[in-house]
């Protein structure tokens, strides 16, 4: 059993009681909500005649269903309009702070909370969204919950949960040029498998992790859940503190010094004990692309799609399904696979640094005529910053469409969808069957820089050929 890791310290601090049966009642320091997984929870509160216990500890925004082309109200899609209206009404009624479209702070919930300084080390953070693990990049313990647990957090600010085991994933050396956080996390998921993290929190550590920016660290923690771990985190350091300082909701003045002392005391250290430790060499990782229907089915850009015989017995069943669904032949190269749609955005890779990297690749170039490409900034703040830097212009000049912030084609709850069996090069997090809105649509996950390279060539390409 793990001891003295950041996870243990934060868990123990937030433990309210031991529940009959062996799970713990855990206090949730920050609760984030959005329009998709909260309406039924508010409905349940009403049915049970309960109030929101600490309305100031819940913050809302709207992201999943928002259109990215025309955001004027009412939305063209009646169901989407009904969902945003329900959220507006619930927030108003329960006095919950809501960052609506046009507020300057709307966006994907996992992009917005760090931008506002709401996400801080040592907190427990829950949200009705599996990518809540993103916030672990700051040394918080953050995890996705379902709607019944959203109800419990609203009503009690606590949930019932079994303590997770802790696996440290130690990443030695540094990533090479043209290789990004996305490649690293896809590599980790491929190495460990998509279910290895079940029952675990992942602690990402080592020189390669220390070397990453806060936004890159968010990409890593974001995809913990794709490896089965509902929680992933990184110990806070100077980069974390610099990122948070002066943000809207960051501790100010004398509170800042107290916060800093406390945050530093939370880190895992040489006395920490883990349930498991895995080590890997980050310098060996190459640009990585998924070829299948789970985020674990990935290969390096110059590799061939694996043969059935090369896979472990447990991976064969899904591999067979993947060859058929993706129309790929075992042994085929992934490089040069034609793509129809290129999507840059999502809570994994829709931040300003992601857009900067992609714009660097696209600068003074045109995308292929055979490709529809669009970029969806992760938040209104990201969009504003990009415009100030002229990044929107670089995208538009290259042939990309510049859209309004939201989750968009990561899960296709708005009108941004693949059509038929189109192939997308996507900076998002899931390549599940039908994930991007068409029941036969095919998704290739990769870094934003690799999506930009694919857009230029109209086919899967090695971004290292575009950068010096």
């Amino acid at each position, binding site marked *: 059993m793990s001891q003295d890791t950041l996870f243990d310290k934060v868990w123990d*601090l*937030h433990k*309210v009681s031991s*529940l*009959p*049966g*062996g*799970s713990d009642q855990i*206090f949730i*320091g920050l609760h984030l909500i959005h329009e*998709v*997984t909260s*309406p*039924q929870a508010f*409905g349940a509160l009403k049915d*049970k005649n*309960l109030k929101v*216990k600490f309305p100031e*500890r819940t913050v809302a925004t709207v992201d999943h*269903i928002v259109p990215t082309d025309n955001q004027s109200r009412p939305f063209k*899609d009646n*169901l*989407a309009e*009904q*969902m945003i209206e329900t959220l507006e009404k619930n927030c108003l009624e329960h006095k919950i702070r809501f960052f609506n479209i046009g507020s300057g702070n709307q966006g994907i919930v996992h992009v917005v909370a760090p931008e506002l300084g709401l996400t801080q080390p*040592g*907190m427990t953070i829950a949200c009705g*969204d*599996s990518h809540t693990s993103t916030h672990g990049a700051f040394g918080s313990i953050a995890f996705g*919950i*379902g709607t*019944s*647990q959203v109800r*419990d957090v609203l*009503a*009690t*600010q*606590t949930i*019932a949960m*079994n303590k997770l085991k802790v696996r440290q994933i130690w990443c030695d050396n540094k990533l090479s040029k043209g290789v990004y956080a996305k490649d690293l996390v896809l590599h980790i998921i491929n190495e460990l498998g*998509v*279910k290895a993290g079940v*029952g675990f929190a992942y602690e990402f550590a080592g020189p390669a992790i220390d070397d990453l920016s806060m936004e890159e660290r968010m990409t890593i923690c974001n995809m913990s*859940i*794709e490896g*089965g*771990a*509902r929680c992933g985190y990184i110990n806070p350091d100077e980069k974390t503190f610099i990122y948070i300082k002066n943000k*809207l909701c960051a501790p100010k003045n004398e509170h800042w010094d*107290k*916060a800093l002392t*406390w945050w530093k005391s939370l880190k895992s250290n040489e006395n920490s004990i883990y349930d498991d430790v895995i080590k890997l060499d980050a310098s060996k990782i190459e640009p990585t692309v998924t070829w299948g229907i789970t985020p674990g089915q990935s290969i390096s850009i110059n590799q061939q799609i694996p043969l059935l015989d090369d896979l472990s017995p447990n991976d064969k*069943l*899904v591999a067979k399904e993947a060859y058929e669904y993706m129309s790929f032949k075992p042994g085929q190269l992934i490089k040069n696979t034609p793509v129809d749609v290129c999507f840059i955005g999502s809570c994994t890779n829709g931040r300003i640094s992601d857009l900067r990297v992609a714009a660097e690749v696209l600068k003074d170039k045109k995308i292929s005529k055979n490709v529809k490409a669009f970029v969806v900034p992760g938040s209104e703040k990201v969009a504003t910053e990009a415009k100030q830097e002229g990044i929107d212009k670089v995208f538009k000049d290259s042939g990309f469409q510049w859209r309004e912030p939201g989750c968009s084609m990561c*899960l296709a709850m708005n009108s941004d969808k693949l059509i038929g069996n189109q192939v997308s090069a996507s900076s998002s997090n899931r390549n*599940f*069957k*039908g*994930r991007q809105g068409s*029941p036969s649509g095919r998704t290739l996950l990769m870094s934003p820089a690799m999506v930009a390279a694919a857009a230029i060539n109209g086919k899967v390409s090695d971004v290292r050929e575009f950068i010096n």
Partner: protein
Amino acid sequence: MKSEFTPPIGKISHLKGKCISLIGNDIDTDRIIPARFLKCVNFDSLGESVFEDDRKTLKGSHPFDLEENKNASILIVNSNFGCGSSREHAPQALMRWGIKAIVGESFADIFYSNCIAIGIPCFTLPKKSIEEIQNYCDNKFLFLEIDLKNSLAKSKDLSLNLEIKESSRKMFLSGEWDATSTLLENGNLIENKFYQLPYIKFNTHFS
């Protein structure tokens, strides 16, 4: 799709029903209920859309469309069932279709907690046993009687020792799987914890 739906309530100690086998590893919640069906403010009509895209692709031969599975209520699955999105809509859709319990090789974490929170016990068995049950289901009807107190499943020909997390088993037996009231009982402890947390004092924006 059953015509009437009544959600489970209170203690759950015995379950019995016909098994429905669904073969495949890593079946994610997008497949259980595609995202377009999440555009709703209640769960009521999700049952009919469960596995919508997979069912359309298989044109009537999906297990959830087969006539012989019509009244099945115990779902038999393979490994990492329910991975991906945290959408509770997935177990809600299964429950509204008629599923009352799931037996599988393994489950994704968030899916598992969602099932517990809405009253669907999830049990595990080794890969070999699951495959045996799935083979059995291919040829004949399998009715199982599940006894949660002893974690046992029995049929005419089979007796299986099911695995379930001890905390979940106890919650079903006591009826505390619907956690809100249990959590609320500790109102004072929650208030005390709130005032103990260091960041409550220095997060001055939270007011």
